[in-house]
């Protein structure tokens, strides 16, 4: 273990490695995101993730934002265990009837100002599950959505881009809260 720790110390950080073009984009995005989140929310943006019926593919990629390559937390962005601590709800899935109430309650439990981001094709439009007896439909059919991020699932970099766009819009409206960025 000591050798691994030592190697990690002397090695370049793994954060945002990967294919060249993408790496640069990530770095740039990460900087914008850091700057923005500090301006809008004093260097903290707390995210609560809600799976409202997803296939778990979107969760895998949202999870990846926490790994050392994307390392969301160094930007002051972090995932919270409770909606009561959250500024942003990241919602996935074609909201199933069985999850509708839980989603509504989670949204109500999130203090204002709050933003809702629909992540993935299912959350945006119902995706391949649209029209099922078991699904209500897109997230916007249940709670107001501020931003849609398409993809099945969207790559982590795309989710990052989405968060930048959200903060950008929020900054322009000076954090006026829900509705301001729509």
């Amino acid at each position, binding site marked *: 273990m000591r050798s691994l720790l030592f190697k990690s110390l002397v090695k370049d950080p793994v954060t945002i490695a990967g294919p060249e073009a993408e790496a640069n984009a990530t770095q740039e995005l990460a900087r914008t995101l850091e700057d923005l989140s500090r301006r809008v929310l004093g260097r903290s943006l707390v995210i609560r993730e809600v*799976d409202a019926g997803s296939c778990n593919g979107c969760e895998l990629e949202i999870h990846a934002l926490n790994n050392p390559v994307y390392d969301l937390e160094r930007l002051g962005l972090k995932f919270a265990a409770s909606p009561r601590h959250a500024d942003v709800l990241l919602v996935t*899935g074609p909201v199933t009837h069985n999850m509708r109430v*839980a989603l509504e309650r989670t949204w109500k439990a999130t203090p204002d100002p709050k933003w809702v981001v629909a992540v993935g094709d299912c959350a945006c439009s119902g995706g391949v599950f649209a029209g099922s007896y078991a699904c209500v439909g897109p997230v916007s059919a249940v709670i107001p959505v501020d931003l849609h991020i398409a993809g099945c699932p969207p790559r982590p970099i795309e989710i990052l881009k989405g968060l930048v766009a959200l903060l950008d819009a929020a900054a322009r409206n000076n954090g006026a809260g829900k509705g301001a960025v729509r």
Partner: protein
Amino acid sequence: MAQRPRTARRSDPRPRARRRRAVDAKTWIANAEALGRGEGELVALFAEPDRVHMALRDVAGTRLLTLAVADRRYPSVGARHAPAIRLERAIRDLFGHEPEGLPDTRPWLDHGAWPLAHPLAAKRGLPAKSRGGYEFLPVEGEGLHQIPVGPVHAGIIEPGHFRFTANGETVVRLEARLGYVHKGIEWLMQGAPIARAAMLIGRVSGDSTVAYAYAFARAVESALRLTPPPRAVYLRALMAELERIANHLGDFGAICNDATYVLIHAHCGVLREQVLAACDAAFGHRLMRDCIVPGGVAADLSAAEARRLKALVDSIAPRFRELVAIYDDAPSLLDRTVTTGLVSAELVRRFAAGGYVGRASGRDFDARREHAYPPYDKLGLEVPVFEAGDVDARLRVRLREIEESLRLIRRILDALPRGEVRAALRGAKGEREGVGMVEGFRGDVFVYVRLSGTTVVRCHPRDPSWFQWPLLEVAVKDNIVADFPLCNKSFNCSYSGHDL
């Protein structure tokens, strides 16, 4: 702790004959009773508006029994073989068939929120009026308290409800309630063209998108008696092994993280990310979704990407081994995983629990070997089996499987045939049916499909989680509440795959 896995022999690589047989109620009951006596294993149990099917595996191989449902009733399998209970509760909700004698008649997938009842029945029903709350099993005793958790959990995971009954710190009972992410996939597949059904099947459980697409493709090809090109056969296995490695790496990290050992988690995160990025570069999708299609594969592998994959495997192997060495050498970590979340060999056998859950408790089954579908018949496969049945053993199965998958990927890349990667699909006259079974990272994924031309009449995917979820409830018993996340991660059951 340092248990040696048994090196498994390879079984006869010839594909087993699969038969479907219409049976009467007497034979149906006799087979259910035989399952109850432990003579064979339940593979799947599913319905149609006018019949029920039971897939089972015994000394004679895997076969499918069909019973006509008269008056919307049929003799319950669950009454004779407990692992069928939840499957029958689901059948009851979806089709309105009454499994006679079913010991637990609470709804399972239907939470009383759908706009209708029995959505897959020939004649759908009206939604039951205010079905009210769900009645959890009663618990009595002094000093017991309940802890309700979910459906929205603290982490970034899927929704489900867990009802813990605890005595102080110790869990005396866990009861799970699932069905929150039921999306109506079986219904959506009915009448869908094969291409759309393939997309749906690839979204049953995102982490197993390759395994599902693979099993579905094999089921369709067996129905249409179509052989995919040899190159596609190898590319499929390549994708399946990459998916296995990515998921196992994620679980390795997550389990250690839940034991607050963040170092391994961080490094596993990096390795996993590199695998996904390589998949993206090679096949155009990080999870390789929609890459396997009936007839072959949708994405070919360039020579350059094949070389990069080989380099990836070479670079991952030593770094992975370093992490395993750390795990082996961390008493504080082993203290959390060893003897935690025990599942007995007896239970695993009774539930025919697949994947690492089964193999950690002595069940020597892996569909890649047992059904020896190509190219696995030519690759050779070592199936690690442990006996301890704890979190540690479930993790060690995964660690060995990562090694084995790395080896398989090298072999596949070396043996990769040239040529076409996709054969055209031609619908057959009349109805045709087929089944496919594939070893996903979590266990055996089973798919039944019946086609009319190139339209899906009926398709049923059965996730390995059906036979693992109930064992999690057993595993966590007598453990402290704080060890639940650890037990849960060591199972990593699919909610979406189960809820359908």
